């Protein structure tokens, strides 16, 4: 069986996680609503909440919840 290099890269990324410093799941949950509202308003959410984007890169569960919140709030017309 051959390996898709992209799959291998993703596997390595999952194993090694983000290189940047990141917040915890707890902090991510606390800040997620502010981060999403800032993003949707066109502001620099990453500057306002440092380390949250890196956490989303490293934590699939928090990333899924971020994607859902962004989609739901966007669905509200913002």
């Amino acid at each position, binding site marked *: *069986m*051959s*390996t*898709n*290099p992209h*799959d*291998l*890269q*993703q*596997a*390595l*990324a*999952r*194993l*090694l*996680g983000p*290189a940047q*410093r*990141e*917040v*915890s*799941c*707890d*902090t991510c*949950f606390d*800040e*997620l*609503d*502010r981060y*999403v*509202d800032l993003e949707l308003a066109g502001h620099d959410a990453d*500057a*306002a*909440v*440092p*380390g*949250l984007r890196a*956490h989303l*890169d*490293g*934590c*699939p*569960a928090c990333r*899924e*919840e971020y994607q*859902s*919140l962004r*989609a*739901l*709030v966007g*669905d*509200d017309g913002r």
Partner: protein
Amino acid sequence: MTIVDAATVKLVEPARSLVAQPEPTPLLDAESREWLQSLRAEDGTRDAAIARLHALLLRAARFEIARRRATLPHLRGNELDDIATEAADDALVSVLRRLDDYRGASRFTTWVYKFALLEAAVKLRKRAWQGREIPLEPEGWDLLSSGALEPDAEAEQSELLAAVQAAIADVLTPHQRTVLVALALNGIPIDVLADRLNTNRGALYKTLHDARRKLRKHLGECGLALDDSLEKE
């Protein structure tokens, strides 16, 4: 699992060093202000507001379920409705308990949505894995290392993969190895593994984070260029 269980964690890194200090509480938009006033009222207004809030949370829970519907073909509509209702009920308890934590940094509706989305997501992940074996031993190495990774860049990644494998065996504690392999290699959802190991998401992520740091440090000391070889998922 309650919201507190699902979301309460020890810090991966000191929050103060990463999270910008909150801005002074901004002026609330009219809708958010109305929500707070109604939910803090001492008359029938509060009951009506709680009913409206529950409806909002139920909508969010159903939204999450709809997004994941394709991954849950074995669940019937009434089971999904039950999950949505349970998620909205649990989220309502959490929102009312933490109402004083809302500081107006986002719209009130955005703030409450996240509780319902978390509850629904956690319940769905657990439901999807209900009755399934949780593999804690490496399952994916053969697939990853068996392939046609030819010239140069691929060969470099293959070397890195072999080094990662060796580092996992050599430098991690048994618990770090178990958590890293289950979450990052075998794809077990973190909430499912937390339940199985009788812990919570935050504690597991802290272990995962520490294991990743240890691997990165070790591989760096071995002279391997990590981030040139990786890309975001």
